[in-house]
């Protein structure tokens, strides 16, 4: 097996990013769309941490900021989801086609 | 939750069922009949919003044995043991009520000595019933230990019962016209010893619970019922007294020879679970007071009045009620002049008190339902009969 270089980590991050993108673009269930966004954020995190291996700790600090954002996003996204579900009795993202109801 | 059960429920409006429980969507939970905290086989259908109770519906009858119907096919004497099986934790009180009702019908007076023995045993039974209530109620709220303490002390009462009549639970201690058995040697000593033994034990229960923060938080303000509602629903016993109504049949319409004793009727003000707890504890102490007075003054004399071998009361009807540990226990007996009653109707306190459940738990949490079922002190044998 070849030694593990940062490129390996970057390829893994790219693959996770692609998976996340597929999830966001194709799934109808809002919850799964939100989770795909988490996948994308994690891919970014992996990139940051992998680069911090090369250029110092700033990458890790940014990864922590990204995690903070993910927490905020999850709380807010799920709040919207609950409000939406209460009004429309559905969790499908392509049924969110009105700005106001 | 099966569909057929929901079909007949009127006031819960269970027709529409949602599969989630957000917002307007309710969760329907079936508490019992196989549930550890329903004191037997009570089934309560709860309509919940999250943990908040929107309404309840009691489904009873799982322990129905048709006691009232059986009475119509037994002679008055033969029916006597059946009443013990209604409120099986206070069998002596049930027997007393029935015997006195038939005596009233026959126009017979139990001799004074019999009355004293009756009062002692009944009050002992009241303590036993309250101890059982305290133990199980505390267990429902999560305190395990009081259960074992109360059962340890209740055991002493049951020992006295066993020595007196041979049975511990369904005693069949009294007969129409008095008591069948003379007291055994050392009965008075045993009772006095018991009074001395249990007085500090009641303080022990109080030590564990009365000032316990969690206990107070769990019971204060929980299951409130006003005096007006109590009277409207016919609720009696400690539940009524905890709401501030000073109504105890032992004082209001004295039976046996309760008028000869000096005791007080404890009342509460708030009508919540905590007050009911305090009222019952004071009642235990008052019972001890009655017992120690009775055992001091117990007269000599016959234990049984003159009662014909075949009991044939004159045609007529009678309603006689006593203060059972749980509330007013009434017997309505219609006699057609034969050896068997034409109809016996029992007014069981548990059954009537259970009606208040819905009123008391609306808007409370699931955990409060448990506390309220516990504080109502129901016995399903009596509810279902």
């Amino acid at each position, binding site marked *: 097996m070849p030694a593990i270089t940062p*490129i390996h980590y970057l390829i893994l991050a790219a693959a996770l990013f692609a998976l996340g993108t*597929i999830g966001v*673009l*194709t799934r109808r269930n809002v919850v*799964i769309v939100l989770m795909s966004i988490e996948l994308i954020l994690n891919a970014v*995190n992996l990139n940051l*941490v992998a680069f911090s291996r090369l250029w110092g700790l700033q990458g890790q600090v940014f990864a922590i900021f990204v995690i903070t954002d*993910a927490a905020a996003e999850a709380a807010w996204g799920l709040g919207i989801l609950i409000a939406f579900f209460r009004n429309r009795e559905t969790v499908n993202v392509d049924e969110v086609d009105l700005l106001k109801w | 939750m099966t569909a057929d059960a929901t079909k007949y429920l009127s006031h819960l409006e269970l027709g529409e069922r949602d599969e989630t429980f957000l917002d307007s969507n309710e969760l329907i939970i079936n508490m019992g009949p196989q549930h550890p905290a329903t004191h037997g086989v009570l089934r309560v259908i709860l309509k919940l919003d999250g943990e908040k109770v929107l309404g309840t519906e009691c489904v009873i009858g799982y322990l129905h044995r048709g006691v009232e119907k059986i009475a119509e096919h037994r002679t008055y004497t033969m029916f006597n043991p059946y009443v013990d099986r209604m409120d099986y934790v206070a069998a002596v009180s049930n027997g007393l009520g029935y015997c006195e009702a038939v005596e009233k019908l026959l126009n017979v007076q139990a001799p004074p000595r019999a009355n004293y023995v009756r009062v002692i045993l009944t009050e002992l039974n009241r303590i036993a019933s309250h101890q059982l209530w305290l133990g199980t109620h505390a267990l429902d709220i999560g305190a395990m230990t009081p259960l074992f303490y109360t059962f340890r002390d209740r055991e002493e009462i049951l020992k006295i019962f066993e020595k007196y009549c041979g049975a511990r639970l369904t005693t069949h201690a009294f007969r129409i016209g008095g008591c069948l058995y003379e007291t055994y040697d050392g009965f008075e000593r045993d009772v006095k010893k018991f009074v001395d033994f249990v007085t500090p034990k009641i303080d022990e229960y109080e030590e564990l619970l009365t000032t316990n923060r969690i206990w107070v938080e769990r019971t204060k303000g929980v299951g409130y019922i006003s005096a007006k509602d109590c009277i409207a629903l016919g609720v009696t016993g400690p539940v009524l007294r905890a709401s501030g109504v000073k109504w105890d049949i032992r004082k209001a319409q004295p039976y046996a020879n309760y008028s000869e004793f000096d005791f007080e009727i404890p009342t509460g003000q708030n009508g919540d679970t905590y007050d009911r707890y305090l009222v019952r504890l004071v009642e235990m102490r008052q019972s001890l007071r009655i017992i120690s007075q009775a055992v001091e003054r117990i007269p000599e004399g016959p234990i049984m009045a003159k009662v014909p071998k075949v009991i044939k009361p004159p045609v007529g009807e009678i309603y006689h009620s006593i203060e059972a540990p749980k509330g007013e226990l009434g017997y309505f007996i219609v006699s057609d002049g034969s050896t068997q009653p034409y109809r016996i109707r029992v007014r069981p306190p548990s059954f009537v008190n259970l009606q208040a459940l819905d009123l008391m738990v609306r808007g409370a949490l699931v955990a409060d339902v448990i506390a309220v079922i516990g504080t109502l002190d129901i016995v399903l044998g009596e509810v279902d009969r």
Partner: protein
Amino acid sequence: MTPVATSFFFYLLSGLALLGGVLVITRRNPVHSALALILTLLALAGIYLMLYAPFVAGVQILLYAGGIMVLFLFVIMLVNIGRAEKEKQFNKQWIVSFVAAAVTGLLFVWILTKSPLLRQIAQKAPMQLPEASNTQDVGNLLYGQYMLSFEIASLLLLVAIVGAVVMAKKRI
């Protein structure tokens, strides 16, 4: 704490991460998706440990797997309707989306393997990151150089909390 058997653990963990990722976007039942996502997150935490970033790994486990995902599961249980599982899982434009996303991913991989800049990266010697004082160093950066960003992040969280409460509450 020096990582041992690096390549083995890298392939194991990245395999788990990718497996989790694939499961997230293919499962019908959102609870299964969430559990798969937890698998991915834990695998990534392991990879962070291998990259000399223990603090990020700890935060990943504590916040992501223990906090955010429990929130997800909580909400899924609240809005879980059997109906959703029987419906169509993918939207109308899924072919286009899939192709676009897959092309993006392949583009990344192509760039990563072909780009001369990244070839430099591959040859750059990794920095010596003192693992034993990782937390202290990250803390120094967070409360020193990135103080303002840190405070803004806390403000963001506050806004998110208030927003979530406003959104999710039945009656305010």
